[in-house]
């Protein structure tokens, strides 16, 4: 599974949106995933195919339906490559601080 495929798959707003939707609610059908999106069913199918071949989406059959799941392993591989043991804690602290500051009223 190449990292190039993962970056190519992530380099598209529509595909990131599909991953966000799976992150919010895992295990959706194609129909559910497409609901309320400005994307044709064909486009959703194509994007999901690309995400699946990059191993960012895993699927499972349930009867006649195919459920889609976000697979976080390749994203972790990317994090692991550049974020080591010590940075992980510090970055989490920075990220928490950023969230906290952004929530505060001016």
């Amino acid at each position: 599974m190449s990292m190039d495929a993962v970056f190519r798959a992530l380099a598209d707003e529509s595909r990131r949106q599909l991953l966000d939707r799976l992150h919010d609610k895992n295990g959706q059908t194609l129909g559910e995933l497409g609901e309320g999106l400005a994307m044709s069913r064909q486009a959703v199918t194509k994007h999901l195919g690309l995400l699946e071949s990059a191993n960012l989406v895993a699927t499972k059959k349930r009867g006649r339906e195919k459920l889609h799941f976000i697979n976080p392993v390749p994203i972790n591989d990317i994090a692991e490559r550049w974020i080591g043991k010590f940075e992980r804690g510090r970055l989490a602290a920075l990220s928490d601080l950023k969230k906290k500051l952004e929530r505060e009223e001016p």
Partner: protein
Amino acid sequence: MSQYIYVTYIRSTQQKVWDALTKPEFQKTYWFGMHQETDWKPGASWKLMFSDGRVADAGEVVEIDPPRRLVLKWRNEFRPELTAEGYSRCTMELEAEGDLVKLSVTHAIERENSKLIQAVSGGWPRILSSLQSYLETGRAHGDTRSTAEVKK
């Protein structure tokens, strides 16, 4: 139902991946320093142990078909709010694809918005990335070698 599926492709053999998943001496190197205690027979009790000897998770072996499929009944034992959710089901499947092994781990529980499934969804990707690195390069990732991070 709350459910996650984790998939990783490892340049190795099914038998080596199976051994790394089921043998304590291998587990300790990439699984946050933890190891499992079980006889690996259907119905046998199963425990995931912290390196200090405390039980992290426990349950039983539901199905075992080496080197292809393993199903565990799995309950958290160290965070009361997670223990209260009861038993989840963890299925590990290994398939050979060319010179790669596709390892799929499905972790599910019959309840919506499970905190257990959310908690393990942070751990599994790191365990599997580290397992892959260990089998392909001989080195696990540094931050999965000790138990410290899990207890936080």
